């Protein structure tokens, strides 16, 4: 009850309960023993013990991204907190709501180089949306609730709450601030009416419109996807998604042109270059999408809907900025569109659609599957075919397999696709899949992984086995860090420096050593059977799919090139030199 005296540790658990937290991902240590003691024997909160704190943060990300809820992490001081930094930075870059509770040495020892002490607040200041150090037990309840508010409001992000051990053992009355807002931080959700009207006017007269949507549609909640669907069918426009936006609009819909960007489809990038009005819904004009900024979509007027004011006019000048939450703005935009009867009708857009069809005819994602060597695209496409009719969640690691998964999987709904976009963290996918499986115990959850990425967090296999989480790891094993090798081939004269993954384990034996199932496919005619066996298995599976080691991922906008100059296949790479300026870009 709210006025009873509790220890700090009990206050933490009570606050989590009042915030409707059901699961926390964590790893114990000296500084957080009081919380672990309070967790012992209680059933309200489920604790998932990971094997590395980085795994806890990525699991919380997978949980958050697949549910829309705030993911919660509990780690100890010092190395526990520093091990969480990568996951926090990943959550910041991809706008994932996380609250990370870190232990800390007692207040009187802070700054004294105590055992397992780190300046957590200092270290995480630039990699979190906000952070707190609790110095007084009287502030604990308020800070915990405020952390959740900050994590989920406006543009979501990670929040760290640093908890000194003496605070956890002190006593105070608990106050339920669950519905409290921050006194000044009030993100703007509703877009300015004038701007929305100006946007509708522009779109209504457009001859070559394009909708470009991103992670903001997913973060805004399920209503945003429904409103986007309504908007798209109302206007008849073509649309494209960023890596983070996939699933925001059904991929099988003919109005969807595929993903846009460095490894996006030819038709998406060409449509973006040649459009006359571009509507950016919840995306941030990331450099993977824009290519050379000075030649980005030169003839178009741009409308940008974003809840984060600082994202607008950051790298690309837009003509109609609209600060607001995607769902709120789309709702208003639909109303204005209908009131003004802005639609020109399907005939008006026919020439544009015909042009798009010509680009689509290039069939940029095609590949040749023979019968000797498995092509990575084939493996991923067969996986899609086998899973498309059931409730499937896909996470990926980072690299070529990630791009092929984004190109070849069709996501019809939001929150089914979890990937590390902004930070591009190898080792993200497997722990994230664990987090997704915890949230959706009956669903099929698959981590599409490269073998190099999977090596980074494979210790989490123990976590999956402990908690009965039947995550399937679909390893696209090409013996190299594929994307690095591709760049070394195209930009560095084929000098494959340190990109060969030597001394790989036998993945089948590795899975079995954990008590999981291990499968392998070497030949194209084995792929379907391995996929079926993987899906049918009751527990966690590692499927080692041995693919063509030197397959490259196309289309590709080479770094420093404008986004209409794509390499479409191996034949293109010889002719297009990469400029000096392009070479220095990541």
């Amino acid at each position: 009850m709210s006025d009873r005296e509790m220890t700090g540790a009990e206050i933490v658990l009570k606050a989590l309960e009042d915030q409707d937290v059901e699961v926390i991902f964590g790893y114990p240590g000296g500084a957080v023993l009081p919380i672990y003691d309070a967790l012992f024997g209680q059933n309200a909160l489920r604790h998932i013990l990971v094997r590395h704190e980085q795994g806890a943060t990525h699991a919380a990300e997978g949980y958050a991204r697949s549910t829309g809820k705030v993911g919660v992490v509990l780690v100890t001081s010092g190395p526990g907190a520093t091990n969480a930094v990568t996951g926090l930075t990943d959550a910041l870059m991809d706008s994932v709501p996380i609250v990370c509770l870190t232990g800390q040495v007692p207040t009187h020892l802070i700054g004294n180089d105590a055992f397992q002490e780190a300046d957590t607040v200092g270290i995480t200041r630039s990699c979190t949306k906000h952070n707190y150090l609790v110095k007084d037990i009287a502030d604990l309840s308020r800070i915990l609730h405020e952390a959740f508010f900050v994590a989920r409001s406006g543009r979501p992000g990670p929040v760290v709450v640093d908890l000194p051990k003496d605070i956890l053992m002190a006593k105070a009355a608990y106050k339920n601030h669950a519905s409290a807002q921050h006194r000044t931080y009030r993100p703007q959700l509703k877009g300015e009416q004038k701007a929305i009207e100006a946007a509708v006017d522009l779109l209504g007269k457009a001859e070559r419109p394009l909708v470009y949507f991103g992670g903001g549609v997913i973060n805004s909640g399920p209503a945003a996807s429904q409103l986007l669907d309504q908007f798209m069918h109302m206007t008849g426009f073509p649309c494209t998604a960023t890596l983070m936006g996939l699933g925001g609009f059904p991929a099988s819909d003919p109005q969807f042109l595929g993903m846009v960007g460095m490894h996006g489809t030819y038709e998406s990038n060409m449509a973006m270059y040649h459009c006359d009005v571009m509507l950016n819904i919840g995306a941030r004009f990331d450099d993977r999408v824009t290519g050379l900024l000075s030649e980005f979509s030169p003839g178009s007027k741009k409308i940008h809907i974003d809840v984060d004011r600082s994202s607008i006019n950051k790298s690309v000048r837009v003509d109609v900025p609209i600060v607001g939450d995607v769902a709120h703005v789309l709702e208003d935009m639909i109303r204005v569109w209908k009131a003004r009867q802005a639609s020109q009708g399907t005939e008006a857009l026919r020439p544009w659609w015909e042009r798009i069809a010509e680009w689509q005819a290039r069939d940029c994602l095609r590949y040749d599957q023979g019968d000797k060597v498995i092509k990575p695209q084939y493996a991923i496409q067969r996986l899609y075919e086998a899973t498309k009719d059931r409730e499937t969640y896909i996470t990926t690691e980072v690299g070529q397999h990630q791009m092929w998964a984004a190109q070849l999987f069709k996501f019809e709904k939001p929150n089914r696709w979890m990937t590390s976009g902004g930070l591009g963290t190898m080792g993200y996918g497997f722990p994230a899949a664990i987090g997704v499986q915890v949230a959706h115990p009956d669903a099929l959850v698959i981590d599409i992984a490269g073998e190099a990425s999977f090596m980074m967090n494979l210790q989490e296999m123990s976590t999956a086995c402990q908690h009965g989480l039947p995550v399937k790891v679909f390893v696209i094993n090409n013996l190299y860090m594929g994307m690095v090798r591709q760049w070394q081939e195209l930009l560095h004269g084929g000098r494959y420096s340190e990109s060969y993954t030597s001394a790989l384990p036998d993945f089948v034996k590795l899975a079995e050593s954990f008590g999981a199932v291990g499968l392998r496919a070497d030949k194209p005619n084995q792929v379907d059977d391995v996929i079926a066996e993987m899906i049918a298995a009751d527990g966690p599976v590692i499927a080692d799919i041995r693919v063509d080691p030197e397959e490259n991922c196309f289309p590709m906008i080479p770094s420093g090139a404008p986004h209409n100059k794509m390499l479409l296949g191996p034949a293109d790479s010889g002719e297009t030199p990469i400029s000096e300026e392009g070479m220095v870009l990541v």
Partner: protein
Amino acid sequence: MTDENVARHTISILVDNEPGVLARVIGLFSGRGYNIESLTVAEVDAADALSRITVVTSGTPMIIEQIKAQLGRLVPVHRVADLTEDGPCVERELALVKVSGSGEKRVESLRIADIFRAQVVDSTNESFVFQMTGSTEKLNAFIDLMGPLGLVDISRTGAVAISRGRDPF
């Protein structure tokens, strides 16, 4: 960064007076490569625990807009104002300038201080410390003149500014 359109702006930020807030603001500038020409901070409202940070920065209009937007979305920031752009403002800085000299140079330094209406806040047989308040340009001019007259050291506060008229900020 090219020189076209690069301008100096004085940004005034009202923040929660909490440990770490200043570090957060400075971290924003350094993390994103924005320039800090000067920075000053002090509590301005004890009851509500608010401080004002005044930063002088420079950049193109697009960069300045970014800086303001990035500052605005920090959780402990209440309000961001661009005093250079928002309307007429008063801007002042304080400097303590130590000059050591004898004979003609000593006399000349006193005379120039008089012209600039600086005050002498410390004097020995061989040195003076002058206290100067005024616009940044005025301080720069004074310090330049002290250069050949035995300038030893300078301590400056950085600009503080406030809008003219009756509205807050």
